[in-house]
């Protein structure tokens, strides 16, 4: 059988596994969000379905599938159905270039833990997918033919493209240090064990900017203006019901996972173990080492997810003018300055 068929089979298996993983993570996020918000507000939270209410998100999803799918009479039916598909599919497609552990050698075949983590322009692919993600929300807002939806969709797209610039610029600092756009290279650069090489120590300003823009890109509080209930009812998803609403919901939580994963990969050392792998007696390419790497990685991601939820239940929402001011007047100049200073640092210190 030609090599290309094997590549396709391997990629398909990985893709299905990743899709399943994303859905499970979304369910976990929903559960954590409800439990932590309950804790923050001195409530109990879900505790009926399954042990400690852990099956609640699954019950919610099955319920949503069986709910009536209402399409308003004035809406553009084609785009109204397409918008949630775009949102969810793009949220999944980003995972094509994201690695989540080191590699495993099986026989003479080296299997990377990720679908295509070695792509030369992986980092740019993520930015490109982020910019395509705007369409789902814009089209949802426009096609519903509802004033709240339109305003929510417009606000959201303007917000996302504004913060995308600072996000792209903050990542240039990392590219300057690493000299590569492949996500595997970026993590491996941080793995080199001569002291702590995590990018957060070399790029503290970039880290803060990326963190803020990650909140803005996922439309999470305090940047959840597109669905600011007091003024816009539900924002772009006002006219959605059933699983089409559920798809926006899933996409939001999938994006939250993606953002946490990206922060870990770019700034927090990826799957770097707290001690060198040699001292644990684990060999490169062994399943044990890959599992240890994945565990460390997963713990870091969970901590960031907790941070995302913690922020949502602690900080009030921005006003729209404050949001745009922060994006254009503060973050953009600072991130440009950060790029130039990092460039000088790379030139003088290397």
């Amino acid at each position: 059988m030609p090599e290309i068929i094997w590549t396709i089979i391997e990629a398909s298996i990985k893709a299905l596994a990743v899709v399943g993983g994303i859905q499970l993570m979304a369910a976990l996020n929903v559960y954590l969000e409800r439990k932590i918000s309950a804790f923050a507000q001195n409530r109990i939270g879900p505790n009926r379905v399954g042990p400690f209410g852990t099956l609640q998100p699954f019950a919610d999803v099955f319920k949503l599938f069986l709910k009536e799918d209402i399409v308003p009479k004035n809406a553009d039916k084609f785009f109204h159905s397409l918008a949630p598909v775009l949102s969810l599919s793009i949220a999944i497609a980003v995972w094509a270039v994201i690695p989540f552990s080191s590699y495993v050698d099986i026989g003479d075949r080296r299997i990377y833990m990720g679908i295509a983590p070695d792509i030369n322009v992986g980092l740019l692919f993520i930015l490109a997918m982020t910019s395509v993600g705007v369409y789902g929300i814009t089209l949802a807002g426009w096609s519903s033919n509802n004033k709240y939806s339109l305003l929510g969709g417009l606000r959201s797209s303007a917000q996302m493209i504004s913060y995308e610039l600072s996000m792209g610029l903050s990542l240039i600092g990392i590219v300057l240090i690493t000299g590569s756009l492949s996500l595997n290279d970026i993590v491996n650069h941080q793995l080199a064990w001569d002291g702590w090489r995590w990018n957060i120590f070399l790029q503290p300003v970039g880290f803060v900017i990326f963190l803020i823009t990650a909140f803005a890109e996922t439309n999470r509080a305090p940047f959840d203006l597109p669905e600011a209930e007091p003024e816009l009812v539900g924002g772009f998803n006002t006219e959605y019901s059933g699983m089409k609403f559920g798809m926006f919901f899933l996409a939001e939580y999938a994006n939250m996972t993606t953002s946490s994963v990206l922060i870990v990969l770019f700034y927090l050392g990826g799957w770097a173990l707290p001690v060198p792998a040699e001292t644990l007696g684990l060999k490169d390419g062994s399943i044990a080492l890959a599992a240890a790497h994945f565990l460390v990685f997963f713990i870091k991601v969970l901590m960031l997810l907790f941070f995302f939820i913690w922020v949502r239940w602690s900080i009030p929402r921005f006003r729209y003018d404050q949001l745009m001011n922060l994006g254009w007047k503060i973050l953009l100049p600072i991130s440009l300055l950060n790029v130039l200073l990092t460039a000088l640092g790379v030139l003088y210190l290397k």
Partner: protein
Amino acid sequence: MIETYVPLIVMLVVGFGVGFLFMLLSEWLGARRTTDGKQTTYESGMIPRGTARDRFSIKFYMVAMSFIVFDIEVVFMYPWAVQLGTLGMTAFWTMFVFVLILFVGYFYEYKKGGFEWD
């Protein structure tokens, strides 16, 4: 090198497959008891007035325009950033001038109040 892109295309196909599957399932499995009231546009319980196909602020258009200009700048910066180590100081000053030229536009827009929202 093209072979490395095959898994990416597979992922795109799977991603969109899942999206369309969910949409179709939602349309097939969902209950169907449609009434006129359900299908009207939601306007906080009021009878909807006019349509949402109305004009909106030109500011959104300006944001998109400013975005394109700076997005192209960011895209130009990536090849530069990858190679800066080997290119040296001249490349730094080249990029500095490039950023400076675009910052004139940024400053103009700033002073004109293009980034002010009310």
